[in-house]
């Protein structure tokens, strides 16, 4: 995936201000040659230096920020790979592999237009989805089905009766009367059911009108913030301090604190026959019922969420209010819940101790689960928040998929795109993990671009095993660049120096150029034909 065009933006802005490389470099305390490397995308840039440059160039940090650009580049790539636009893309000489740099250049130079294209594509996909939803409703909705059936029966009766009245000679008056009555009755019924059907379609208008689902908007928020909320981290740490909670006796200390400070009550829930939720919260009484039979990590998490709900309502609300990615109440509610879970994670696995332990354990999730008494998903999620300066942790990407391939949580890496709609490459470990529930699958992969990653995935049961119910699994996958593999236990034993050791995979069939892969489900992007090279770049 192409680097975000920060360098390009810096250059454009510098030129617009009429400043030389040397002068700008001097003003921020780097050499002109280093600045040149930055502008050409040969060196990454962030942190304090980026801030200085932003100041010197009199632009907002957000304008230069890479995260939004990376997402936009990904969007443009998806547009180029959309099957519906395949012919147009082919005629324009665009192919998934070849246009990554073009996309980066477009975003760098014409960010506004790129956002326009992206918005247009999203709107188009939404219309697509709306149409599919309506089609499904038409075919399967029982109310509509029944109404149509009735309508046709009414019409049949009316037709029959009319034909008799019009076609039969020598009808007795009584018979004429009878069939007229039928006409009247059936017409009335037809009127009613017609109105019902018409109303059915009107009601359907508001559905799927939003551009994104709440889940997608929350996803966008998490992505935009790099899955790290510094303010919430600080606030969570403050709560821990205030509650006097240390490692030992975490639960009892926290329960006492919540009772003292917020009058909250935590008690044992009783299993009332059949499957009961592990934890049930009554906001009015501020009472949390936690099942004794639920696993320890579940119980701790429930208490931590309660703490977040009560003690961090304000900072969470501030984050939600400030998030422009959230456009509906449903999205805001979903975001609130996601951030409560985030804070719960921060309270159970405070940053410094967790980062230290993780490094010591070489990011072995099972060890961390035992150490912090947290679930696999909680630990994995927390690992994906460690990519902060000063923590010296490898950046982890995170993805959660259900068995149908529906992705419900994703945090991509800068050079690893995770699918937003639909499934990823079927070869990825995240899917293989379903074959060995509760056992980790690790995988060293190589993309067509040459990028290599270490994937580790595990399918976990979402609820406690029960005789009455089938087991429902979710697959959680962490990903990191293969360069970090020697720091991670999951990289042990892999012959990392041998090119052959990595499994060839792609981002998804649609965006992957491996035409010979026998798991391919969609046609590969059309390769660029030599004759079009000249005209396709338009530089």
């Amino acid at each position, binding site marked *: 995936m192409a680097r975000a065009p920060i360098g390009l933006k810096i250059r454009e802005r510098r030129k617009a201000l009429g400043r030389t490389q040397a002068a700008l470099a001097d003003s921020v305390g780097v050499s002109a040659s280093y600045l040149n490397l930055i502008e050409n995308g040969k060196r990454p840039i962030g942190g304090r230096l980026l801030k200085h440059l932003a100041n010197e160039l009199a632009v907002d940090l957000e304008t230069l920020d890479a995260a939004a650009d990376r997402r936009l580049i990904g969007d443009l790539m998806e547009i180029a790979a959309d099957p519906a636009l395949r012919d147009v893309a082919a005629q324009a000489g665009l192919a998934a592999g070849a246009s990554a740099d073009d996309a980066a250049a477009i975003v760098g130079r014409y960010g506004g237009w790129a956002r326009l294209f992206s918005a247009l594509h999203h709107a188009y996909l939404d219309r697509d989805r709306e149409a599919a939803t309506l089609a499904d409703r038409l075919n399967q909705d029982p109310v509509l089905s029944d109404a149509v*059936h009735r309508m*046709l*029966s009414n019409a*049949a009766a009316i*037709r029959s009766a009319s034909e*008799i009245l019009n076609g039969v000679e020598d009808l007795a008056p009584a018979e004429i009367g009878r*069939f007229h009555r*039928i006409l009247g009755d059936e017409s009335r019924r037809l009127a009613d059911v017609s109105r019902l059907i018409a109303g059915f379609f009107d009601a359907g208008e508001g559905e799927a009108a939003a551009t994104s689902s709440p889940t997608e908007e929350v996803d966008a928020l998490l992505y935009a913030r790099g899955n790290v909320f510094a303010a919430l981290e600080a606030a969570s740490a403050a709560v821990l301090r205030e509650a006097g909670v240390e490692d030992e006796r975490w639960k009892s200390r926290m329960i006492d604190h919540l009772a003292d400070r917020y009058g909250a009550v935590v008690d044992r829930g009783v299993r009332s026959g059949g499957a009961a939720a592990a934890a049930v919260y009554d906001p009015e009484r501020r009472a949390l019922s936690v099942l004794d039979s639920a696993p320890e990590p579940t119980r701790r998490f429930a208490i931590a969420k309660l703490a977040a709900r009560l003690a961090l309502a304000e900072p969470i609300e501030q984050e939600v209010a400030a998030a422009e990615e959230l456009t509906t109440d449903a999205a805001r509610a979903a975001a609130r819940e996601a951030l409560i879970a985030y804070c719960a994670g921060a309270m159970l696995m405070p940053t410094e101790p967790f980062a230290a332990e993780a490094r010591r354990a070489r990011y072995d999730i099972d060890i961390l689960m035992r150490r912090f008494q947290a679930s696999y998903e909680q630990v994995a999620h927390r690992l994906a928040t460690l990519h902060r300066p000063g923590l010296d942790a490898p950046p982890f990407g995170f993805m959660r998929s259900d068995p149908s391939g529906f992705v419900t949580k994703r945090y991509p890496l800068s050079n690893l795109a995770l699918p937003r709609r639909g499934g990823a490459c079927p070869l990825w470990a995240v899917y293989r993990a379903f074959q060995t529930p509760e056992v980790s699958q690790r995988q060293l992969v190589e993309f067509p671009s040459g990028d290599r990653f270490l994937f580790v995935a595990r399918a976990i049961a979402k609820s406690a095993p029960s005789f009455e119910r089938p087991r429902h699994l979710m697959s959680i996958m962490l990903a990191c660049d293969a360069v970090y593999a020697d720091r991670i236990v999951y990289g042990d034993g892999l012959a990392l120096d041998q090119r052959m050791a990595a499994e060839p995979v792609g981002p998804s069939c649609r965006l992957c150029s491996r035409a010979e892969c026998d798991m391919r489900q969609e046609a590969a992007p059309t390769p660029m034909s030599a004759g079009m090279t000249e005209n396709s770049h338009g530089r």
Partner: protein
Amino acid sequence: MAATRILIAEDEPSIVEALRFLLGRAGYLVDHVDDGERALSQLAAAPPDLLILDVMLPKRDGFEILKAVRDNQKTADLPVVMLTAKGQARDKRTAAEIGVNAFLTKPFSNTEVMDHVKRLAAP
């Protein structure tokens, strides 16, 4: 020779009335049931010479009844005219597989019904 007996299995009274009227005029003896279970018992007890059967009946599905008719030796060759509110290809196929003599979609014309009935069982 006794008059030809037709059994109508249909739960829409107005449709039944129109059919009864026309069939009666044409010289047929018409009987009627309005749910699937009654249809099955009637077919077993006193098989008619022709069956007019709606796909959607209360208590038993029309295809179920059609299958029962074909499976029973006594009624395996009984002429059946099927009526449906939705003429989906799938329904037509299912009916053809089980064995139906005519398949009409509502709102049908009386002429259609009468033509098929007369073709399959003279009055």
